[in-house]
């Protein structure tokens, strides 16, 4: 079956613009995570969705970051008024339940000029 799909794979934009990143999880996976991976760093937790529960937004670095998950499936991560420090690879992962292994997409490489 299909894995986790993320789009776009690459995004280059100017400082100050808004960007929207998309994640299509594995069908039936109720848990969905967003992470940020900066060069030479581990993964930084951003946000977690579980079914219809309120998302855990405790990892979002600023109020410029937001995410939605519509119908318990597709998720979008939005970064408003992008800054150069937002440049990173944004990874999405899904799992059957919160303590099961996560399946990762290939990420969106975001570059802010």
């Amino acid at each position, binding site marked *: 079956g299909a894995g*986790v799909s*993320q789009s776009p794979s690459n995004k280059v934009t100017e400082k100050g613009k808004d960007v929207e990143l998309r994640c299509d999880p594995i069908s039936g996976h109720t848990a969905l*995570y967003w*992470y940020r991976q900066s060069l*030479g*760093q*581990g*993964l930084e*937790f951003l946000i*977690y969705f*579980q079914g219809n529960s309120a998302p*855990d937004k*405790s*990892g979002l670095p600023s109020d410029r970051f937001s995410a939605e998950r519509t119908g318990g499936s597709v998720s979008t991560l939005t970064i408003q008024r992008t800054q150069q420090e937002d440049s990173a690879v944004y*990874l999405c*992962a899904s799992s059957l339940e*919160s*303590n099961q*292994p*996560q*399946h*990762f*997409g*290939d*990420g969106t490489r975001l570059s802010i000029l």
Partner: protein
Amino acid sequence: AQSVAQPEDQVNVAEGNPLTVKCTYSVSGNPYLFWYVQYPNRGLQFLLKYITGDNLVKGSYGFEAEFNKSQTSFHLKKPSALVSDSALYFCAVRGSDNFNKFYFGSGTKLNVKP
């Protein structure tokens, strides 16, 4: 504070030799531990996990990891390395104060030379 440490940025081994990639963790209570592998321009792939039971956990591609509670370690091992094992390896632990949150190490680049 909860965290994972991978003390080696890079590990070099010759093909056919055993390999070890080190991981130590800091979390209260019983840890849920994971290893993932990342190939260039790809997402992470799950290798193995420890939740409870035997301290030696076997996973994908011949990898195994040993949980050591007294040393708070979860080192990844393989008896005989392959060139194709060359990749970036991440250790992760589930948070004990927030079960939704997973803490990842900074990664160890494994280079296996022919």
